[in-house]
């Protein structure tokens, strides 16, 4: 009898287990995929699929399911896992085989899930993952005894080092060939009795394996004495953040200069070789000045994500969540909000999706509403441009880079404002009791350079793809709107002033004049709605057409330093801390909240905050500088 699913050609295998047991790492190894892997729970919130070949060249469809602590489906992501196992996900067949992934260093917790999965009656293989870490902790697990106790095959794996994968593929082949197809699966009913029975069964199995009383203090526990210390812990966290933002400015400088000179050379080459025409203007003033101005910030993005990925991989981030739980609780946020908010530092869209791990609907909504206040990577080019133009590259307090300090201040500003908004929401619309945080602290391990490299490569791909697609397209349209119609006979001033974009910018500048924005900035804000970093490219194009220079990617920083006052620059920085300059985020909120109500509320409150904060900043800075 074929193992193939009745309505599909390929057998389906599902990776199931507790959060942070290495399912996605195993998925990547089996399928050759590059899904995100991190050393904390809740990275996978949707089921992902891929394909692989077994040792007998059988093609298999593989599902990577969100981690679940049990089969009670208390959160939306756990519900996805349960629905797939029950075969109730629309358009999906139930799996033919489960690969139950467990963390070998934490069998007491993970085996309960295995016992629950066994009740479905679906053939199963146990992947005893992180076996290397268990061995290092002195845990010797007899796989034969474990297999006999559970009644399923057990394979030792270390997914991040690709160890044991061959054995796993062999076992999958064997089980798919041997075990008969069951037409109907059991739908287990979870009661207090079954949970108590499972706890007892886990104790019995661990006792049989002789690992029940393994209470030796691990290396992680030693490290946690300092990292989670009430005084030293927050200091270490602050130091980590400080080092990251210093490195973003100090480390990126030579690389940025190199990239800048390449962009300038291309612009000069095209300017000199092409005849004076609209095509030359499109390439030099639109494409190079626009997209090139954004591209030069790639080194800063790489350095920022290198540090974030290192912290993720090492297992430090859940500790940071643990330390911040009290603070988050005091403003009405759930401790579970930490990971979604942390994801929002890369991009608010995955952050908003990661709120699916939050059980309480009010907590989830509150986290969604403040996620855009976390400083996403798209803001970095805008911040870096303005900081480089207006903040001197001085060292203060014995060698601290001032520019890096201002950048850290902007990130902290985003966090503080998010906490304030959460606190206001708690007092008004989202009154709710505080929920306790149950968070699994994974063992520390040395970051795996392959995962870091994959993570960085993905960020580079995302950034370069955005520059080459949406940013480039918007720059071409902006160039067009900035170039037509031609100025009238006898016109004085740059041609862009008479163009469609110039007219729109001048109309908008009436609205933005009270917060210090000129018509060039007002133009840049419109394409900036598609993606925040587009504003930098838009400024590049607008100033290239205004100034008639061809190397604006390199000259944009001195150009804005000459054209803007300090008050305008500070006002724009503050605008970008708050303004909802990203349509994708609003679309994600609409999808996650099933309606337009919350995206509209978010749009209004964020624009309101941005305008008020910029107004205050502009006028305070004007008064301070005597402008």
């Amino acid at each position, binding site marked *: 009898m074929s193992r193939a699913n009745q309505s599909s050609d390929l057998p389906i295998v599902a990776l199931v287990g507790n959060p942070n047991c290495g399912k996605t790492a195993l998925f990547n190894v089996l399928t050759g995929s590059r899904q995100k892997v991190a050393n904390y729970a809740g990275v996978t919130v949707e089921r*992902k699929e891929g394909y692989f070949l077994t040792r007998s060249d059988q093609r298999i469809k593989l599902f990577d399911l969100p981690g679940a602590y049990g089969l009670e489906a208390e959160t939306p992501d756990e519900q996805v896992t349960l629905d797939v196992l029950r075969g109730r996900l629309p358009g999906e067949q139930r799996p033919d085989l489960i690969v139950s992934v467990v963390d070998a260093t934490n069998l007491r917790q993970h085996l309960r899930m295995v016992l629950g999965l066994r009740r479905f009656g679906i053939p199963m293989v146990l992947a005893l993952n992180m076996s290397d870490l268990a061995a290092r902790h002195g845990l010797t697990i007899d796989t034969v005894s474990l297999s006999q106790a559970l009644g399923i095959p057990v394979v030792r794996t270390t997914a991040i080092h690709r160890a044991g994968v061959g054995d796993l593929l062999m076992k999958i082949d064997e089980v798919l060939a041997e075990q008969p197809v069951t037409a109907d699966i059991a739908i287990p009913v979870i009661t207090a009795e079954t949970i108590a029975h499972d706890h007892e069964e886990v104790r019995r199995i661990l006792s049989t394996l002789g690992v029940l009383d393994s209470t030796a203090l691990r290396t992680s526990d030693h490290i946690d004495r300092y990292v989670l210390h009430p005084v030293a812990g927050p200091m270490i966290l602050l130091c980590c953040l400080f080092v990251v933002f210093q490195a973003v400015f100090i480390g990126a400088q030579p690389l940025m200069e190199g990239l800048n000179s390449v962009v300038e050379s291309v612009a000069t080459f095209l300017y000199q070789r092409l005849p004076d025409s609209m*095509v030359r203007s499109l390439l030099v003033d639109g494409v190079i000045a626009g997209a090139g101005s954004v591209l030069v910030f790639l080194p800063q993005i790489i350095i920022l994500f290198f540090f974030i990925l290192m912290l993720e991989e090492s297992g430090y981030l859940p500790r940071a969540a643990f330390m911040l739980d009290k603070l988050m609780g005091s403003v009405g946020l759930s401790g579970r909000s930490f990971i979604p908010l942390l994801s929002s530092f890369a991009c608010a*869209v995955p952050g908003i999706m990661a709120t699916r791990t939050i059980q309480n609907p009010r907590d989830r909504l509150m986290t969604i509403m403040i996620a855009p206040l976390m400083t996403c990577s798209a803001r970095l080019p805008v911040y870096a441009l303005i900081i480089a133009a207006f903040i001197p590259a001085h060292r203060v307090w014995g060698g601290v880079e001032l520019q890096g300090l201002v950048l850290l201040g902007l990130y902290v500003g985003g966090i503080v404002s998010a906490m304030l908004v959460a606190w206001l929401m708690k007092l008004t619309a989202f009154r709710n009791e505080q929920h306790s945080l149950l968070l699994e602290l994974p063992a520390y391990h040395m970051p795996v350079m392959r995962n870091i490299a994959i993570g960085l490569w993905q960020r580079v791909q*995302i950034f370069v793809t955005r520059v080459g697609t*949406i940013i480039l*397209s918007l720059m071409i349209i902006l160039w067009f709107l900035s170039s037509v119609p031609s100025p009238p006979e006898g016109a004085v001033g740059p041609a862009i002033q008479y163009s469609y974009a110039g007219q729109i910018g001048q109309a908008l500048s009436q609205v933005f004049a009270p917060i210090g924005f000129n018509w060039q900035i007002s133009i840049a804000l419109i394409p900036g709605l598609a993606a925040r970093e587009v504003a930098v490219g838009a400024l590049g194009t607008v100033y290239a057409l205004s100034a008639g220079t061809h190397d604006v990617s390199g000259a944009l920083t001195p150009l804005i330093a000459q054209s803007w006052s300090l008050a305008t620059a500070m006002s724009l920085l503050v605008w970008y801390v708050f303004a909802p300059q990203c349509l*994708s985020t609003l679309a994600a909120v609409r999808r996650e909240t099933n309606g337009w109500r919350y995206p509209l509320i978010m749009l209004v409150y964020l624009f309101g905050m941005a305008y008020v904060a910029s107004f205050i900043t502009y006028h305070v800075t004007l008064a301070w500088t005597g402008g």
Partner: protein
Amino acid sequence: MGYWLDRVFIVLVVAISAVYVIYALGSMSVKRRILAGFIHCFGLRIYTLLSPKTMGCTHCGVELQKKNLIRQLKQSGQADQNK
């Protein structure tokens, strides 16, 4: 002649960019219509040649939906060709 070629080229580039911006910022139904329109005009082979691998933010639901959408369109296009 060069003047008009210049103008035609610019109009083409701007038009393609405008369609791409609508595609990138549009809802899934807008994306579906644009992709279906492209496959209808140029055929599935040209589309498959030009379509980049879905990548980017792997947690992003939009990316996942787009991937599913492209797969569906490819399947339906294949079905049309097989008829």
